[in-house]
């Protein structure tokens, strides 16, 4: 009887190892296959429709050397961060303000929720009309796109804070400001961070898309400009760099999140 279950254990353990090995090999294999497919596809489709990966690589190198790539990235990032800051500030401040005026909050809520349905990107031409062709319309876009998830997360978080905790704090003599700070803020931190994880990459995407429509600098501009000049290699390069940028930011956020919140029990409802 001891015989068959240690056989089972051993079999299980070696199976797990084989699995991990197979998965890693599979991933590398798939990655290589995709690169090969890209090369083959590029050769077949011709230089107008597809850029050869080697050319793209060379372009990345040459653009990096000349500093133009870095310049575009910096511009996009600056836009993203500025817009992010604006959106975050309002997204956090407004719910706390509304907390003090519950009647106003109830009256305004349906309109805020309805405004979520307006596709913000569609507003860009209007912003260009109103605010000109500099950074302003793009900042508005990024700000709005960051504002909504942060606002909703903070608003919902405040609402769901345990009434008992608040009442207890009141009884103990805490001022409203202190209650806001200690009780509510701490309770909604996890929701806030989840919203941030969504909002920051969104900010970068929004900056890039804004640059499609207006401006003469930045990654988005680089992509669209290349397209208009039928410079397919430029288009591919821009998209690759933009994608890499967003993915790196995503990964960094996940790492940070894990580091700071390692002690928290994972709430399954908060993950996608």
């Amino acid at each position: 009887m001891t015989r068959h279950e240690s056989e089972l254990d051993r079999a299980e353990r070696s199976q797990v190892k084989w699995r991990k090995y197979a998965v890693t090999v599979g991933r590398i294999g798939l990655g290589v296959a995709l690169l090969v497919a890209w090369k083959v596809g590029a050769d077949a489709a011709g230089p107008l429709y597809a850029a050869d990966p080697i050319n793209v690589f060379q372009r990345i190198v040459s653009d990096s050397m000349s500093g133009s790539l870095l310049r575009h990235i910096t511009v996009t990032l600056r836009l993203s961060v500025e817009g992010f800051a604006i959106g975050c500030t309002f997204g956090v401040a407004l719910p706390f303000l509304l907390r003090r005026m519950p009647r106003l909050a109830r009256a305004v809520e349906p309109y805020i929720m309805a405004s979520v349905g307006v596709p913000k990107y569609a507003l860009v031409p209007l912003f260009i009309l109103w605010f000109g062709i500099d950074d302003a319309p793009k900042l508005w876009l990024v700000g709005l796109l960051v504002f909504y998830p942060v606002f909703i997360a903070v608003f919902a978080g405040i609402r769901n804070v345990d009434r008992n905790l608040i009442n207890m704090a009141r009884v103990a003599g805490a001022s409203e400001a202190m209650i806001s700070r200690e009780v509510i803020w701490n309770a909604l931190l996890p929701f806030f961070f989840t919203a941030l994880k969504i909002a920051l990459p969104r900010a970068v995407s929004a900056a890039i898309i804004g640059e499609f429509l207006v401006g003469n600098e930045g990654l988005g501009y680089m992509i669209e400009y290349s397209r208009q000049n039928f410079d397919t290699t430029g288009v591919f390069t821009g998209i690759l760099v933009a994608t890499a940028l967003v993915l790196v930011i995503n990964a960094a956020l996940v790492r940070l999140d894990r580091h700071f919140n390692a002690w928290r029990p994972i709430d399954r409802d908060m993950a996608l």
Partner: protein
Amino acid sequence: MAAEALLEVRSLSKRFGNRAGREPSPWVIQELSFVVNEGEFLTIVGPSGSGKTTLLNILAQIDTASGGEICLQSHAAPIGNFKSLKPGLACKIGYVTQEDNLLPWRTTLQNVLFPLTVQRRLNEDTRARAQMLIRAVGLAGFENHYPHELSGGMRKRASLIRTLVYDPPIILMDEPFGALDAQTRAQLQEDLLRLWNLGRKTIVFVTHDIVEAIALGDRTLVLSRSPARVAGEHRNSIPRPRDIRGIMIHPEFAPLYQRIRVQVQ
């Protein structure tokens, strides 16, 4: 009245797999042997954590054993290797678990019909049987309700008749009435006995409640604490039909209860 052994358990042992490099885990069940006769209502009592649910899982073929043998209707059942398990042993073993495990997206009637659907036995006769069982446990009128619209007791009843509807030769029950209030529990115990009387199926009923074990069973096994073994076997001669609510007043109850309680310690 020579009763036939429907299910034989011999020297059953179980311990859970140990992680690499750690001590082998303790035996949960060790050298457990007993027999279940055809048409018998067998109750099994034991303290919590004594491996009762594990035992039933092994009998129902959803968990492996580390040793021993199980024979159903004189055929040996595969128990050593996960891959060779046949849950339910081709629908010969029914299993009413502690949680009702009703499919939330099916109505009461659809849930009761579920095993028939899956066994491709859905026809007019089996439908009629399902309806009869629904009426028998007082769920008439709730056929088109979803589980979330039913009370805990009603869901229990539905899960009970869901197993009864396809009439397996032997039915395992794992503290099915444990989570209910006393009133509902008594009602369901009566319903169960009444339904059992109609067909005199073989039932293995696990509970931690000695009163319930005596009220329902023909014979009661007592399991010892971990590692579980048969600590004792008690024949219950209180005549049927039994008065569930008044079982404790029956003269034979007290001594039987004492004998069992002493062993459960």
